[in-house]
């Protein structure tokens, strides 16, 4: 049996034995062991972590249960009294309290926020029935690897091969116009096979799921017969779409609606929290779900496919069966599969989070490091304070105070400090989550669900309190074993030589080094964000954009479409205030592009060795976006109307395809996308369409009638803010009558902001971490120096009394700090250099090892160190020598 090969962690089992009552052990430990074996057999990952988590839950529950049963009322009373006294003491020593609370919150906040993100994105199971057995399918096909779409014929064949319990698929997201008595609204629609929702275990909030029988077959008309009337198709509504467009009215079920002039009947409403995952990054919302029937077509790999494993089979078994299946397919259909063919299967959650996992792990390491440092500093502060109370404890101990009373006091103080740190830390966590949401691209799965996981905040708080209590107990323990008597005997609270100074210095050194590395990263990012604002985009984004999908029943003809767009341009130009109008298929920085090869050598085949971004445009587009025409001219209305084989290229393409040529006007290019060879009539400046920071690919602009797309985007420039004219522009487009709803009305500046906002947010986050690390290292140094100053105070007082100059005394104290800095700063620089490639990937316009940034980073760390050093030294200079020498 596979499950018996790996046993659950022995240490966890021992912990369970220790904390679960004897008569329950067989039941609890046996159940957990059995489920562990089941999970192993089913091919789950992270089973040991799962077992540990369950163990901790049991340990915590047992502890609470035992406490609630055995703690007598007197103990509760004592605890409450102790808490009240501690609260008063902490309020009195508010500077100390504020420092510890602040340090803890700086550690807890980012850690809780980052752990929450990891929990929501990577760990939490998907909201589907038995989601661990749901698989995402991908295909390796020739050069293509890990493609998320299978062909419908393949889905049918896999279904027939009985490899899965069920296998279902979906189409890509489309836009449709919803017609309410002549008023058009744009909705997004996704078609799924009828078994998709039952496979995911989704029960509609209202109505019912699709049935295979009700999905219509679109019959073809017989020769000489009129085409049959299009059948009414079933659709289900997304919950939000039902609320927004149907007022949440239950009677919407059964209603027949018009979408793109087709008739659809609403049969159900999906639950509020339902989202369909796909292998593609589909950040957009789905309004309507339709149903499709699969056809046996093998060469259309565009259907993201999900499957549910058979009961008892693992991902490994299934993969083996799929490999055998692929071999059969290759043999049966050599015409379709002439290269590599492999179907891969992996858990849906793993597939979704593959790209995000490494970055999130790195971030977790960073914030946990910060948490540990914060905890160490806070504990050092608590311990240092307890040491100053040696005498107090010793006297109380001498007067008969038991060890438990002192322990309760330390614990209640730690508890209050921990709770204080947790409260402020939680506020910080909420703020950090806001920042992290901006940093993480919206394409990351479950982005919209990212929020604070309160159970993780609780874990971080529990860790902080436990750490504080544990470290706080050490001096109390030592005192209770006789150290306190030394304090009494010595007549002062000076306990002897500087204990633990070396380990603290190492800790502070690590903090200084971390400050250098993080400060370097944040300076690099900040400079990059500044550089990006100055970058030349190659176009002026101050235009409003309107998506227009024409009704192809009316404008399906290649000749009709340019005429429709020409009429739209002419009409919109008449809107008062409009200065330029152009139409394009793919907006710059929209994340949507058309890429294919091209070649200037007309004897060669077009391949991806030389590729470009293709865009379909109408005359006036370059004028509307202020893209400069460098050579030649724009496409003319006539060339556009007659679909002539002309193109405009950007300067990058002109240089790449025709190196050394002064003018490329009149040259011919062989093109991709099924376009005929075309003559270059103009060269324009390069517009940054993929990334703000760099030229990704050259650009080819073809007349819109040649490069057929099911939508077009009207770009409108005006004398003032173009968005103020949006109602008039929509009315003008509607007047021409493309037959579909105008949608996605937005300024193009939105795209530019979206492209740069992630960098701005990353900068904010890293800067926050750098400032936190700087603050912590300053506090760390302060604590060490203050500790040293305190321990040397008698010697210092004697020197001052004997007339030693103040400056020499200051240097004696500062020397330790200077040594730490000298050792730590180079280590920090090495760390920064090691991290530099990571930052280089997301920065723009700054060198990988920029000296300026490095100097600034070192300066930040030194300033933090200087602050931490000078404050206690200055305080030492103001010591009351007489009272110290008296032994107060």
């Amino acid at each position, binding site marked *: 049996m596979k499950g018996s090969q790996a046993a659950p962690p022995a240490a966890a089992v021992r912990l369970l034995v220790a904390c679960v009552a004897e008569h329950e052990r067989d039941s609890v430990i*046996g159940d957990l062991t059995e489920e562990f074996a089941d999970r192993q057999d089913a091919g789950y990952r992270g089973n040991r972590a799962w077992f540990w988590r369950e163990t901790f839950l049991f340990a915590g529950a047992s502890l609470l249960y035992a406490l609630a049963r055995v703690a007598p009322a007197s103990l509760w009373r004592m605890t409450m009294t102790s808490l009240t006294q501690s609260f008063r003491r902490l309020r009195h020593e508010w500077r100390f309290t504020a420092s510890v609370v602040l340090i803890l919150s700086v550690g807890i906040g980012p850690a809780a926020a980052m752990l929450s993100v990891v929990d929501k994105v990577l760990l939490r199971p998907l909201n589907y029935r038995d989601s661990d057995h749901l698989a995402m399918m991908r295909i390796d096909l020739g050069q293509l690897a890990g493609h998320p779409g299978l062909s419908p014929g393949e889905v049918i064949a896999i279904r027939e091969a009985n490899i899965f319990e069920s296998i279902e698929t979906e189409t890509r997201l489309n836009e449709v116009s919803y017609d309410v008595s002549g008023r058009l609204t744009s909705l997004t629609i996704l078609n799924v096979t009828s078994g998709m929702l039952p496979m995911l275990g989704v029960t509609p909030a209202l109505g019912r799921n699709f049935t295979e029988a009700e999905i219509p077959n679109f019959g073809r008309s017989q020769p000489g017969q009129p085409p049959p009337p299009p059948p009414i198709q079933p659709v289900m509504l997304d919950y939000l779409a039902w609320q927004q467009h149907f007022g949440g009215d239950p009677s919407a079920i059964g209603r027949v609606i018009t979408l793109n002039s087709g008739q659809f009947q609403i049969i159900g409403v999906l639950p509020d929290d339902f989202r369909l995952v796909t292998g593609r990054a589909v950040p957009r919302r789905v309004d309507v779900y339709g149903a499709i029937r699969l056809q046996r077509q093998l060469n259309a790999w565009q259907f993201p496919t999900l499957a549910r494993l058979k009961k008892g089979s693992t991902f490994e078994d299934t993969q083996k069966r799929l490999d055998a299946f692929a071999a059969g397919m290759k043999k049966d259909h050599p015409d379709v599969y002439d290269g590599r063919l492999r179907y891969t299967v992996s858990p849906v959650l793993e597939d979704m989070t593959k790209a995000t996992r490494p970055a999130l792990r790195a971030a977790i390491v960073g914030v946990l490091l910060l948490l540990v440092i914060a905890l160490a500093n806070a504990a050092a502060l608590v311990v240092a304070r307890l040491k100053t109370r040696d005498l107090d404890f010793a006297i109380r101990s001498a007067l008969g105070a038991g060890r438990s009373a002192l322990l309760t006091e330390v614990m209640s103080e730690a508890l209050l400090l921990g709770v204080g740190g947790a409260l402020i830390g939680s506020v910080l966590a909420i703020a950090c989550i806001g920042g992290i949401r901006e940093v993480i691209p919206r394409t990351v799965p479950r982005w919209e669900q990212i929020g604070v996981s309160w159970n993780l905040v609780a874990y971080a708080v529990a860790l902080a309190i436990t750490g504080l209590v544990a470290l706080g107990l050490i001096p109390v323990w030592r005192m209770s074993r006789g150290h306190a008597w030394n304090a009494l005997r010595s007549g002062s609270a000076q306990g002897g030589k500087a204990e633990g100074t070396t380990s603290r210095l190492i800790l502070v050194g690590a903090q200084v080094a971390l400050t250098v590395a993080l400060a370097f990263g944040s300076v690099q990012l900040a400079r990059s964000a500044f550089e990006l604002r100055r970058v030349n985009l190659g176009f002026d984004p101050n235009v409003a954009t309107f998506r227009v999908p024409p009704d192809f029943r009316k404008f399906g003809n290649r000749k009709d479409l340019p005429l429709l767009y020409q009429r739209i341009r002419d009409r919109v130009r008449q809107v008062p205030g409009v200065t330029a109008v152009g139409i394009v298929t793919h907006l710059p920085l929209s994340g949507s592009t058309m890429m294919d090869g091209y070649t200037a050598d007309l004897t060669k085949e077009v391949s991806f060795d030389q590729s470009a971004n293709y865009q379909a445009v109408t005359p006036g587009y370059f004028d509307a976006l202020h893209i400069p025409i460098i050579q030649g001219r724009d496409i003319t209305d006539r060339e556009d109307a007659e679909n002539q084989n002309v193109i405009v290229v950007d300067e990058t393409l002109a240089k790449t395809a025709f190196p050394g040529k002064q003018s490329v006007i009149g040259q011919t290019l062989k093109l991709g996308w099924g376009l005929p060879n075309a003559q270059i009539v103009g060269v324009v400046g390069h517009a940054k369409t993929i990334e703000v920071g760099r030229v990704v690919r050259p650009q080819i602009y073809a007349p819109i009638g040649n490069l057929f797309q099911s939508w077009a985007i009207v770009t409108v420039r005006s004398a003032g803010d173009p968005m103020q004219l949006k109602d008039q522009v929509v009315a003008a487009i509607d007047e021409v009558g493309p037959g579909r709803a105008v949608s996605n009305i937005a300024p193009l500046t939105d795209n530019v902001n979206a492209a740069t906002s992630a960098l701005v947010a990353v900068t904010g986050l890293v800067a926050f971490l750098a400032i936190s690390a700087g603050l912590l290292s300053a506090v760390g140094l302060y604590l060490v120096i203050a500790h040293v100053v305190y321990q040397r105070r008698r010697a210092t007082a004697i020197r001052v009394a004997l007339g030693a100059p103040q400056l020499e005394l200051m240097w004696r104290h500062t020397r330790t700090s200077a040594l730490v800095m000298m050792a730590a700063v180079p280590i920090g620089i090495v760390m920064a250099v090691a991290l530099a490639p990571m930052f280089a990937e997301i920065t723009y316009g700054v060198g990988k090892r920029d000296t300026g940034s490095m100097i600034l980073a070192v300066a930040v760390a030194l300033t933090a160190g200087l602050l931490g050093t000078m404050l206690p030294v200055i305080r030492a200079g103001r010591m009351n020598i007489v009272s110290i020498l008296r032994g107060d």
Partner: protein
Amino acid sequence: MTHEPLGELEQMVLLAIVRLGRDSYGTPIVDELRRHTRRTILRPSVYLALKRLEAKGLIRSRMGEPEARRGGRARRHFEPTTAAMKTLRESQRTMNSLWSGVVLSTDKKKA
């Protein structure tokens, strides 16, 4: 017999045991609850509820045979007592009676 009040989780655990029949021990009970609820069900809280139900005399348990797959430990099977069935029937009758004629308006969430 006096009816001790049943907490929500206790009632759910009891129902899960009734639904599972002979196959009701820790893990299937937790799974059954997780399948039917939309909230997080922590395993220790279910075991505590089982302990309370047993103390109230609403369930009884018997130990099975030790199994290698369970690390040589036995399963603890639970079954409802007659008192439990009576309590559940009473609870069902009360709830049905209270629900009869109640129509909740649809919860309209704003986007």
